[in-house]
């Protein structure tokens, strides 16, 4: 087995050193450039906008793609094939990736269950734990600003007769720990509170919540899709029992994620996908080796580059906020300025409609809420839960900063946002009235 691996490695090295110059020459000659079918007619075909939507997804790091490519090519074995080298090779790669992910969050590799993404992980955690312990425990606690997949899973549990407490949040988006304390019941099986919110960036006090749950022997699940790899996460220190991770939020591939399921004290979960019993029976299905290798590589890189990335994102975040607030009044930051992930900035611009601002900013790729709810015209439920009135909620824009964002892009974004907000406000009679000192809340509007 070892000599097989050594032989494969030697062959790979020889081949790559021989073929690389040949391939580089091909690339220079523009041979067989791949094109994609640009179905959407409103794209400007010639330019790519500045990408400021890191919470929706992140570009895959070239170093991650490099690790994945062999498994998208010749190393195509099924990791569950026990009888030949194709399978062993794939299994080795999967187990290596499992360790890379576990090391990032200080878990045991056996506690990592691969899924298709954080949505599936959230479904498995919420429904799986509630149903397993559902004989005696019929209560689950969550918050009003969770991701839709958690809220929808809770709704599905309610249809099955479970009681769900949706904790309100404070104006800054944080869960009040006293409210959580009051919400516990003897039959509570699970608390699910997301680590970093994807719309307003607020960072919950996960360690305190974990301690409260551990004291009361209630399992604690956190959707850490926006947190893992960006801020230090330690599942043991923070007393986390279940945690969802998403690949494409941390510069990895789309379509892969994992769920951390604690072994000590043991968390039992009823699977939502049945089949061949893969992943300790918790998630059946052939493991997608290339995606898993990508997720593992992405986690390893996040661990190595965390200091470098976080300093960069913090610097850019401060730069963007300072530039915008120095030139514009009537700007509200949604969320908390201190307990926040700096790469997610949600700003409301008074008297400017969010969608109009987005349409005016065609050279920037921005969002006014979460990607999974962007098709709806309803104001964001997260902003509503923080007490933001509908008008301000409609005028919110989310700026997402990531590893690959540059200083130039931030300056460009600030300049264009300031310019367009001023232009839109010039068109707004309400803004004009406010500038004249009129209190808009005291006006009695007549109907025509």
């Amino acid at each position, binding site marked *: 087995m070892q000599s097989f691996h050594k032989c494969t490695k030697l062959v790979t090295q020889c081949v790559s050193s021989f073929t690389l110059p040949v391939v580089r020459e091909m690339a220079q000659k523009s041979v067989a450039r791949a094109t994609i079918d640009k179905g959407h007619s409103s794209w400007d075909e010639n330019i790519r906008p500045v990408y400021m939507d890191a919470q929706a997804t992140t570009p895959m790091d070239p170093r991650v793609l490099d690790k994945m*490519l062999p498994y998208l090519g010749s190393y195509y074995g099924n990791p569950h094939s026990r009888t030949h080298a194709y399978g062993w090779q794939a299994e080795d790669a999967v187990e290596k990736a499992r360790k890379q992910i576990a090391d990032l969050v200080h878990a045991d590799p056996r506690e990592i269950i691969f899924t298709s993404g954080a949505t599936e992980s959230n479904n498995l955690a919420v429904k799986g734990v509630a149903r397993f312990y559902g004989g005696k425990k019929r209560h689950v606690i969550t918050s009003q600003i969770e991701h839709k997949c958690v809220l929808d899973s809770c709704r599905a549990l309610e249809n099955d007769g479970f009681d769900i407490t949706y904790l309100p949040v404070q104006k800054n988006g944080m869960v009040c720990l006293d409210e959580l304390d009051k919400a516990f019941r003897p039959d509570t099986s699970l608390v699910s509170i997301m680590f970093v919110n994807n719309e307003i960036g607020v960072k919950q006090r996960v360690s305190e919540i974990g301690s409260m749950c551990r004291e009361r022997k209630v399992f604690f699940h956190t959707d850490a899709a926006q947190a893992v790899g960006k801020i230090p996460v330690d599942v043991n220190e923070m007393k986390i029992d279940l945690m969802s991770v998403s690949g494409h939020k941390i510069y990895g591939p789309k379509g892969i994620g994992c769920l951390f399921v604690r072994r000590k004290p043991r968390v039992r979960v009823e699977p939502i996908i049945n089949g061949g019993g893969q992943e300790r029976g918790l998630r059946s299905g052939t493991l997608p080796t290339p995606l898993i290798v990508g997720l593992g590589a992405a986690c390893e890189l996040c661990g190595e580059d965390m200091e470098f990335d976080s300093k960069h994102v913090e610097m850019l975040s401060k730069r963007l906020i300072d530039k915008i607030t120095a030139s514009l009044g009537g700007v509200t930051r949604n969320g908390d300025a201190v307990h926040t992930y700096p790469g997610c900035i949600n700003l409301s611009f008074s008297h400017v409609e969010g969608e109009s601002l987005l349409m005016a900013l065609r050279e920037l790729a921005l969002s006014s809420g979460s990607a999974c709810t962007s098709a709806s015209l309803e104001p964001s439920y997260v902003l509503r839960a923080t007490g933001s009135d509908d008008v301000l909620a409609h005028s919110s824009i989310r700026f997402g900063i990531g590893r690959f964002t*540059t200083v130039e892009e931030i300056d460009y974004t600030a300049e264009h946002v300031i310019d367009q907000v001023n232009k839109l406000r010039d068109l707004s009679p309400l803004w004009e009235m406010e500038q004249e000192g009129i209190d808009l809340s005291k006006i009695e509007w007549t109907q025509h």
Partner: protein
Amino acid sequence: MARNQLAKLYKQLLEESAKFSDYNFRCHSVRRMKYCYEKHLNETSDEKLEAIVTKAAKDLQVIQRQVVVGRLYAVEHHILDREPTT
């Protein structure tokens, strides 16, 4: 010896990073190489320097491969890419 190798590798890493056709990957790689070099500039332990040089050599191979892959699948230029590399 390892220090000379590191300086040589650093120069190559910067040159290769500048060849990425994607604006964001290019800027990130150049910035990261500068950061890594400055971080390891004052490293005195020979053992650690050897490890850094080995890793830098591997990183160079990754960048070289990914520059090629990027060019095979190159897309439209980024709006801020005023002088696109060919």
